[in-house]
């Protein structure tokens, strides 16, 4: 074997070894970028009326991440929404979330009232909120005349709302200033989460689902 061939072989071996060593890093980087790029948020609204109206929206998470900072309108600036403290009725949401974050898994709030049942819990790194709205707003009233008197029959038709949000997304959402929600940070946190059904609303006339997965179609 000549000196030149031996030198070439040595170089080739060195390059192959370097490639083998760097391959996992490259794969990791690729997997990381793919995992963000392939995440899709799906929204589906299905109406139960005779027409059967259906709305399907599919948005890639990374697209939302790029578009959101470009929107500067009304309360939304640089991916952050300014919230009005008056709407919070003096409730320190941050303090509550901090308490929830540091607490162990369990049920934190259970409210059973005539107009709504509310359940807030933390389970397996997720914040779970279940609300059953039984308020007057969702009741179907039918007037009936009986013995000259008008009576009102109320058919209770509740609305069930289920919200399941990874705690890291909640953390990211409240990572900005006190009076703002950091939507962009929440989206970034969401893009690294697994497949999750985020919101589910079921009422008599509509079903709403919001979920995240790696498919670019909602079916």
């Amino acid at each position: 074997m000549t000196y030149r061939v031996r030198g070439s072989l040595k170089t080739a071996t060195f390059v192959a070894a370097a490639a083998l060593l760097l391959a996992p890093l490259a794969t990791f980087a690729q997997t990381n970028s793919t995992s963000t790029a392939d995440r899709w948020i799906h929204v589906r609204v299905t109406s139960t009326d005779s027409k059967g109206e259906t709305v399907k929206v599919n948005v890639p998470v990374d697209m939302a991440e790029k578009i959101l900072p470009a929107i500067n309108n009304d309360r939304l600036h640089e991916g952050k929404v300014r919230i009005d403290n008056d709407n919070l009725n003096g409730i320190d949401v941050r303090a509550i979330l901090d308490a929830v974050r540091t607490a162990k898994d369990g049920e934190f709030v259970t409210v059973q009232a005539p107009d709504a049942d509310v359940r807030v819990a933390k389970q397996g790194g997720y914040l779970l909120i279940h609300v059953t709205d039984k308020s007057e707003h969702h009741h179907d009233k039918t007037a009936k005349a009986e013995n000259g008197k008008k009576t009102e029959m109320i058919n209770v038709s509740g609305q069930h709302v289920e919200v399941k949000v990874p705690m890291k997304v909640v953390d990211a959402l409240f990572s900005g200033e006190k009076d703002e929600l950091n939507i962009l940070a929440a989206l970034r946190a969401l893009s690294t989460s697994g497949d999750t059904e985020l919101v589910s609303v079921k009422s008599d006339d509509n079903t709403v689902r919001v979920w995240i997965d790696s498919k670019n179609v909602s079916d």
Partner: protein
Amino acid sequence: MILLAKIALGVTGTMALATMYTFREGTIRVDVDEHHAGGSHVHVWVPAAVVPMALHFVPDDKLRQAENRAEEWLPVVRATVLSLKDHPDAEFVEVQDGEQHVHVQTQGGRIRVDVTDEGEEVHVACPISTIEDVADQIGARSPHI
């Protein structure tokens, strides 16, 4: 004779290049069909390459008006277009309400909007790169962008 052949070659070559450029840039399609008596049928196919060129002939005051109106949303359009180019074909919005269907999707580097209603159909397809070119040209005139 040789001069004529040279001119013919030049013309043919220019036409071939122009055709290639047009096909590469794609076409903007607008199809409107009203399926009833007296209903109109509009089919417009415009080479997308023409649009950025045509913008150079738009009067300055008109373009400034468009620029003022679109200024706030141009960064959003640009971000959307850049992101759309990075994604494979996908259906972004689908609405179905009885006889009405609305689809917004990307297909082969074009954004397509298809609306089907009872007795009426509207289909619009535009290359994503054309939207980017137009946004760039309008944005380039704005001192704030």
